[in-house]
């Protein structure tokens, strides 16, 4: 048996984005010893990329806002397959979580009377997003990081977890490796919080970085927890499409919040053409009203560009498919037009959207104050993830908690922009709180050393096959497959083909090989991440096949409408005893009457 360095913590948090950091801070505040594992350096997690803002009904800009409206907006956006309790807790607690950031040093943009400014965003009835220009995620992660480093948390940077350790049903730690030397490490813990983010690297066009390989999803699944809502993947409507090297990089919804419009190659503002019935009463019916909304006129309704992301993405795909796209296969997003409406428009744009200005100027030679941008949908976020108890965030495995993107429930079939950062804070805090409580009530579990040796041996097997296939090639082929066959528009034949290919990729992954040694070897890491990517890709495809309807982010060409029988169920993915992946449908928890009334009143 090999000798592995062992760390002991009461609570181990895996992932150091918004949810992981918030969770670690909370657990630490509860007086337990906390370890925080990050795949990259501290402060580089994907939260840093979030641009638009944190949704919270602070009512600083529009006093009509409150948690009930936010709750109703979230449920409507999620097409009512959300876990109501999570949506309720989220809407009620988000304002406190934002104010707390300010107490920890965050510097949000201000209203004229000196309070936190809020901006409009898709699907939110009132201006609700606390923000810092278009770099809100950076502000959030830096605030949590700078606060967190003084809380006595042990940070393990550039470590990756390969498997969760179990004692019976209970999760009692994790096993992984550090990047620099490639050595394996044991993390013993009384409770483990997964906060690993998303799965974007399963797709070719994505706003996600190399880290987002569904690690938490796969770790939870392999350990025996359930995944829900895996079919719902958010394709953000506006990613860059040109030049090819930047394809997929996010263009914030804040551009549309500030008045940006979507137009096709004929110069037509196409979003007015297909406003869904359930949003018609709250959507502008002319361009002037839409502009007045963005300027903060309370009697105006939102422009159709600010409809939910699933809908806007499909409208963009329709324009492109029907030959009305832009030269490089997108559509135009134009903010420069506002110069017709206001003096100093260029300065205004640069102040409100500084990193977008910078990003286009530097990467695409486009001056967004003068020219339209070319944009198209990009894989951005997965609504699905580990199934957790809404109040405690614990999975069905004792001692295993999950928060943020790798957990599921709050968003239903589609997430509203801005609800992610608030989700990270609200449920990160809850996960940390209840993980600490669990740790306080339990002792360290027993660890099976033989099992660790097996995991270590499997992880090193790629070094023995010097003539095997390049893992980068397999990853690329998988990304192409998911993009083409399980993307924005889906059907049964294509998804069955995808399943066959995924099975084939699994065989190929078992024959992958890397060169060099264990020290900081990205080829090795890519080979190891492949396993997780394949697991989540299969889960996404199987769940999408099971939901034979179109709802929210899932659009099935063979079932283009919403179906009543799928309106109150979640898909549940779990690992069966024989190791195969099982999918079933399960009824949603019934929304209690007081919340039904909230939904009706805020329709």
């Amino acid at each position: 048996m090999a000798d592995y360095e062992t760390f002991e913590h009461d609570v181990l948090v895996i992932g150091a984005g918004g949810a992981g950091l918030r969770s670690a801070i909370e657990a630490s505040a509860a007086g337990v010893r906390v370890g925080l594992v990050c795949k990259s350096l501290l402060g580089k997690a994907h939260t840093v990329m979030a641009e638009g803002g944190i949704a919270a009904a602070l009512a600083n800009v529009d006093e009509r806002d409150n948690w009930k409206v936010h709750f109703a907006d979230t449920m409507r956006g999620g097409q009512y397959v959300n876990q109501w309790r999570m949506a309720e807790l989220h809407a009620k607690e988000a304002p406190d979580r934002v104010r707390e950031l300010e107490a920890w040093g965050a510097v949000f943009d201000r209203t004229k009377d000196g309070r936190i400014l809020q901006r409009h965003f898709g699907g939110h009835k009132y201006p609700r997003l606390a923000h810092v220009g278009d770099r809100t995620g950076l502000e959030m992660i830096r605030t949590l990081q700078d606060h967190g480093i003084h809380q006595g948390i042990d940070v393990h940077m550039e470590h990756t977890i390969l498997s969760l350790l179990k004692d019976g049903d209970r999760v009692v730690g994790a096993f992984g490796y550090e990047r620099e030397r490639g050595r394996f490490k044991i993390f013993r813990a009384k409770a483990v919080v997964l906060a690993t983010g998303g799965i974007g690297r399963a797709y070719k066009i994505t706003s996600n970085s190399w880290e987002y390989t569904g690690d938490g999803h796969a770790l939870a699944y392999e350990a025996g927890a359930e995944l829900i809502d895996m079919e719902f993947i958010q394709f953000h409507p506006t990613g860059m499409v040109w030049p090819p090297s930047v394809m997929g990089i996010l263009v914030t919804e804040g551009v549309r919040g500030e008045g940006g419009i979507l137009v096709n190659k004929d110069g037509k503002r196409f979003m007015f053409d297909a406003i869904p019935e359930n949003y018609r009463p709250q959507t502008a019916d002319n361009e002037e009203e839409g502009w007045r909304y963005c300027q903060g006129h309370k009697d105006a309704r939102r422009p159709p560009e600010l409809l939910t992301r699933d809908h806007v993405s499909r409208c963009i795909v329709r324009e492109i498919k029907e030959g009305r796209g832009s030269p490089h296969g997108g559509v135009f997003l134009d903010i420069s037009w506002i110069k017709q409406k206001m003096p100093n428009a260029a300065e205004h744009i640069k102040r409100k959207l500084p990193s977008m200005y910078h990003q286009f100027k530097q990467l695409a030679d486009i001056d967004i104050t003068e020219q339209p941008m070319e944009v198209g949908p990009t894989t951005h976020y997965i609504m699905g993830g580990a199934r957790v108890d809404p109040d405690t965030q614990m999975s069905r495995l004792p001692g295993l908690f999950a928060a943020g993107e790798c957990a599921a429930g709050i968003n239903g079939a589609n997430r509203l922009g801005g609800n992610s950062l608030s989700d990270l804070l609200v449920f990160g805090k809850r996960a940390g709180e209840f993980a600490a409580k669990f740790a306080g009530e339990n002792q360290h579990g027993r660890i099976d050393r033989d099992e660790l040796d097996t995991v270590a041996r499997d992880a090193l097997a790629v070094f023995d096959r010097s003539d095997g296939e390049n893992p980068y090639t397999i990853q690329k082929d998988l990304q192409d497959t998911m993009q083409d066959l399980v993307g924005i528009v889906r059907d049964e034949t294509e998804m069955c083909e995808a399943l066959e290919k995924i099975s084939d990729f699994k065989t190929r992954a078992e024959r992958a090989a890397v060169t060099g040694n264990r020290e900081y070897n990205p080829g090795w890491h890519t080979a190891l991440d492949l396993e997780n990517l394949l697991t989540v890709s299969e889960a996404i495809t199987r769940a999408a096949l099971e939901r034979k309807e179109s709802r929210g982010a899932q659009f099935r060409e063979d079932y283009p409408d919403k179906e009543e029988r799928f309106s109150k169920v979640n898909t549940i993915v779990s690992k069966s005893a024989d190791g195969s992946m099982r999918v079933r449908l399960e009824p949603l928890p019934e929304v209690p009457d007081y919340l039904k009334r909230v939904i009706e009143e805020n329709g």
Partner: protein
Amino acid sequence: MKTATFKIWRGDAKGGEFQDYTTEIAEGMVVLDAVMQIQATQARDLACRWNCKAGKCGSCSAEVNGMPKLMCMTRLSELPLEKPVTVEPMKAFPVTKDLVTDVSWNFRVKKKIKPFKPRTPDAPDGTWRMQQEDIDRVQEFRKCIECFLCQDVCHVLRDHQMHEKFIGPRFLIHVAALEMHPLDTENRIEELRNTQGIGYCNITKCCTKVCPENIQITDNGIIPLKERVVDEFYDPFGWLWRWLKRKSDSRIEIRES
């Protein structure tokens, strides 16, 4: 298809050398694209850090043709491709492997800086009031993505290796952001002069030149901090005033006890 040659430094703490890689290039490519392409096709174990690929996370810092740069924001079209493009790790930090350096010193330094300490809230609901014009400067400093390129180019760290005596431009800006935060009540001036070594900065402004976020590190951050240090320690009237104030404060304490 057009190709270009990249001279990439390969090695570890024990030593290394440049190796040539020729790869295809396409319109719009940045240096990081080329490095990743080489990694995926020719050198699977080539170590480099990256995350966002959009200039927002500050992971892919390196020296391109001798200039400290974010690889993800350096367009190949800006570089003379008729000769090889050199890509090497930052020089102010020890090499881990290839383009990856050990930047852990930065994290240790930050931990030693006194954290944010807000005044009591302005409103009964626990919130504060701040005017936008009062936070513009702090927001400029808080744009920092911690790429550490300013640390890399600073001669105090790069050439003189004074990591134990000087915190470098990144953390001077961090201190400036805290000191100029309208809500903050902490005082960090004494350690700025002593342990953090602000006096070592002789305002050559190299840090400002390489900052990918265009933060005016020297003019807006370091110089005002230097002025505060001067006011605190070298102004005789200020010194006398504080001495008297300390005297009277201690008298009050004595009375209370």
